[in-house]
């Protein structure tokens, strides 16, 4: 199938190239080109983000900025070492060289591993469009999306305090497998081990990665032990719809959520 390929070298040039019917932004192409190969997508033109200056990781005083077109593999760096589990569970090393962090926000379920992690980190997005640039919380992005003529330019989050980060991806195979469930959390405890604050995000329970207020409320104020962690998982299983796909039934996802929540939060 013939379609034009644009390689703009700046964000304004990307926005200009996206104006018109059937134009699709492509970052790593692992979803877009696959869908074209499969005959499921027929763009008039694709607009590559790879040369638009949207790749790279910048460490600021309190936060980290990551360009939307940054390949997942490029997140393997010392200041992001806490994300190692997310990276190693994400597809294969070869695919990680292509798949971008920004593209992952648009991946259909059960994909979206880094979206789950970014939700727990309370990340915000940089957005660019014909009317200029703006910022948006990731939570709002999943609720409302962005306009077809806009792109995500980057992601920003604060590094979690040492010892607060939790990650688990439950899969059918040890490597290169889409998630049955993905759980990311930032959990702050006081000196007595009581949970003072928690952000818990889940994949595999809804149409896209979500925060779990039910699990967070169940955990806060309790001592972080196996009973509290499993209880948070039970509350989450009751609150989120879960879904069935080739990897697991909705029943199975609900059934194992408390176990994986315990493992994610406590490692046991």
């Amino acid at each position: 199938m013939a379609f034009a390929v644009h390689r703009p070298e700046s964000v304004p040039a990307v926005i200009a190239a996206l104006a018109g019917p059937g134009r699709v932004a492509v970052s790593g192409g692992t979803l877009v080109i696959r869908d074209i190969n499969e005959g499921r997508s027929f763009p008039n033109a694709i607009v590559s983000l790879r040369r638009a200056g949207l790749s790279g990781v910048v460490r600021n005083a309190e936060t980290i900025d990551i360009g939307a077109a940054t390949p997942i593999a490029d997140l393997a760096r010392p200041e992001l070492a806490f994300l190692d589990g997310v990276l190693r569970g994400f597809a294969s090393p070869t695919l990680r060289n292509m798949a971008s962090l920004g593209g992952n926000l648009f991946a259909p379920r059960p994909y979206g591993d880094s979206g789950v992690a970014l939700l727990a980190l309370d990340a915000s997005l940089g957005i660019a469009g014909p009317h200029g640039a703006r910022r948006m919380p990731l939570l709002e992005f999943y609720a409302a999306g962005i306009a077809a003529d806009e792109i995500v330019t980057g992601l920003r989050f604060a590094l979690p305090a040492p010892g607060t980060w939790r990650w688990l991806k439950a899969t059918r195979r040890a490597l290169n497998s889409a998630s049955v469930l993905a759980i990311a959390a930032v959990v702050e405890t006081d000196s007595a081990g009581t949970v003072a604050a928690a952000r818990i995000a889940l994949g595999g329970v809804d149409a896209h990665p979500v925060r779990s207020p039910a699990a967070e409320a169940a955990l806060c104020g309790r001592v972080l032990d196996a009973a509290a962690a499993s209880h948070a998982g039970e509350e989450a299983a009751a609150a989120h719809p879960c879904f069935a796909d080739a990897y697991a039934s909705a029943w199975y996802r609900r059934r194992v959520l408390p176990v994986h929540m315990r493992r994610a939060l406590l490692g046991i």
Partner: protein
Amino acid sequence: MRSSFVSFTLNGEEKELLIAPGQRLVDVLREQCGAMGTRNGCGQGGCGACTVHVDAVPMLSCLVLAELAEGCDILTIEGAARDRTLHALQEAFVAEAATQCGFCTAGMIMAAKALLDRDPAPQREAVVEALSGNVCRCTGYEPIIAAVLAAAAMLARLPAAAA
């Protein structure tokens, strides 16, 4: 829609090709460059048979548009051997009977080569991880993993320049 000229380096050789819009790198390599070692398997990113190195990074050429390879340095299985001497990985795949129909082999070797370029003495787990995007439907994985480990051992005995 008009074709355009795209230039890249393929296995050390400069190429300038007239490419129809929206062509995939795997098809251009096979059909226009005659580099038939790279296989077109699933077209979904799922099998790894199309693995090539783009600027020394392994990628799936079924998901790469040829027009985006402009200015890149591409290495395929045809570039793995030097001066008619097989790469240690190729030797080891033969010696360890790590190939049967051979459909997966080029992709396996390119994925494994990326690992050995980075980590010349990998643990078994690192080999398994490096090959986790490559599917083989006939040999099974054990001889392939053994071959990669054998190639690493072979390279360790060679003077650095030959690797």
